[in-house]
């Protein structure tokens, strides 16, 4: 990219999909993606910090426009939670849904930033790649799903007691006959595995695919820079990227919404007795 050196398509995409990793131990597992973590923490601190700032100055009288905006978000999440979760929601479930929605929305929204400009900006931090969309890192989406999963199991045990939860593990959904215990247990294991997988991979897949399409379009623009009719490639790829970015607004918000709804649904299911 730099100083007229031409990149092959593979190199361009590989460059943009490289993580800013740091080895913290032996083996591939002990790698920290500093880019995903730092962007996630930054967005969480900014987004949730803003909410906490507004919440700390919240008045029950006439709200400012800023507070009205935050209350709009609050009401949106609260209404969605109320529709699905019929138990006491204010202590954990609704705040969790709000956190998940805000974080996923902000992390997804990083996809709107032009990748090459961001690569230029982050070049001083990491020369060989800096991914600014944490949700296109499967570790981030798995982390979110696992957090929700742990909460789900916690509430399941809390609602039914450890005995009730174990009983349900072996006696639902087919019946409590002892011959059905293995089938029930297998079924429940599959359910407990599939929930975080579908929860996280749906988000990851959408964001990753979106990023790849952006990369393909920008690669077209970059590669046409070294041809004689370069403006054609620039214009067409820019127009296509604009269209995709506009469509992506929908995807970003929709995936955040879906992730939040699934969080609420899973936590609601954890409270149900079979």
């Amino acid at each position, binding site marked *: 990219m730099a100083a007229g050196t031409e990149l092959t398509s593979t190199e361009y995409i590989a460059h943009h999909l490289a993580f800013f990793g740091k080895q*913290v*131990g032996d083996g*591939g*597992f*002990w*790698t*920290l*993606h500093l880019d*995903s*973590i730092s962007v*996630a*923490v930054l967005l*969480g601190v900014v987004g*949730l910090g803003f*909410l*906490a700032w*507004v*919440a*700390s100055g*919240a*008045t*029950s*009288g006439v*709200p400012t426009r800023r*507070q009205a905006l*935050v*209350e709009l978000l*609050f*009401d949106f999440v609260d209404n969605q939670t109320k529709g699905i979760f019929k138990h006491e929601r*204010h*202590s*954990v479930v*609704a*705040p*969790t849904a*709000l*956190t*998940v929605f805000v*974080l996923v929305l902000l992390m997804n929204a990083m996809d709107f930033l032009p990748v090459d400009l961001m690569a230029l900006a982050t070049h001083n931090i990491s020369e060989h790649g800096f991914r600014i969309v*944490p949700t296109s*890192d*499967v*570790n*981030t989406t*798995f*982390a*979110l799903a*696992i*957090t929700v999963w*742990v*909460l789900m199991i916690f509430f399941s045990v809390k609602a039914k007691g450890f005995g009730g939860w174990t009983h349900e593990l072996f006696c639902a959904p087919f019946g409590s006959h002892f011959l059905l215990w293995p089938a029930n247990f297998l079924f429940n294991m599959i359910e407990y595995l599939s929930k975080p997988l579908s929860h996280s991979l749906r988000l990851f897949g959408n964001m990753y695919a979106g990023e790849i399409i952006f990369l393909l379009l920008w690669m077209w623009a970059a590669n046409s820079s070294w041809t004689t009719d370069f403006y054609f490639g620039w214009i067409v790829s820019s127009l296509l990227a604009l269209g995709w970015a506009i469509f992506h607004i929908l995807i970003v918000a929709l995936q955040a919404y879906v992730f939040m709804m699934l969080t609420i649904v899973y936590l609601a299911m954890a409270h149900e007795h079979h």
Partner: protein
Amino acid sequence: MNINVTMFAQAVVFAAFIWFTIRFIWPPLLAAIEARQKSIADGLAAADQGRQALEASTRQADVEMTHARERAAGLVTQAEQRMSQMIDEAKNAAREESNREKAAAKAEIEQEVLRAKEALREQVAALAIAGAEKILRREINAQAHADLLNQLKQELK
């Protein structure tokens, strides 16, 4: 797509963020919104109460007005009656007074007439006596006396 320790680091980060929201964002917002909802509900209830109170007091005011109007009308009638009564009384008193005055005046006039008559009689008598003296100083002429006396008699009548 490679799972590594990033996942656990991120999970800790998210758990911390969820705790942060539970602790610092949700409760104050909820409290503010619920307090506002309560104050709005209270305000609406108070407005409703005020409206009812207004209706009740309007009704009572109407009743009071009717009473007052009736009482005022009664007072006016009473006053009118009293007025005509007083006028009648005054008329009667005036009539009686004038009658009394008239009677007194008549009595005085009669007395004056009587007194004048008495005075006249005395004067006439004196005249008669003076005439008689004059006649007696002359020679008595029975015939002439008789004529004179008759004449006197005629005058006295």
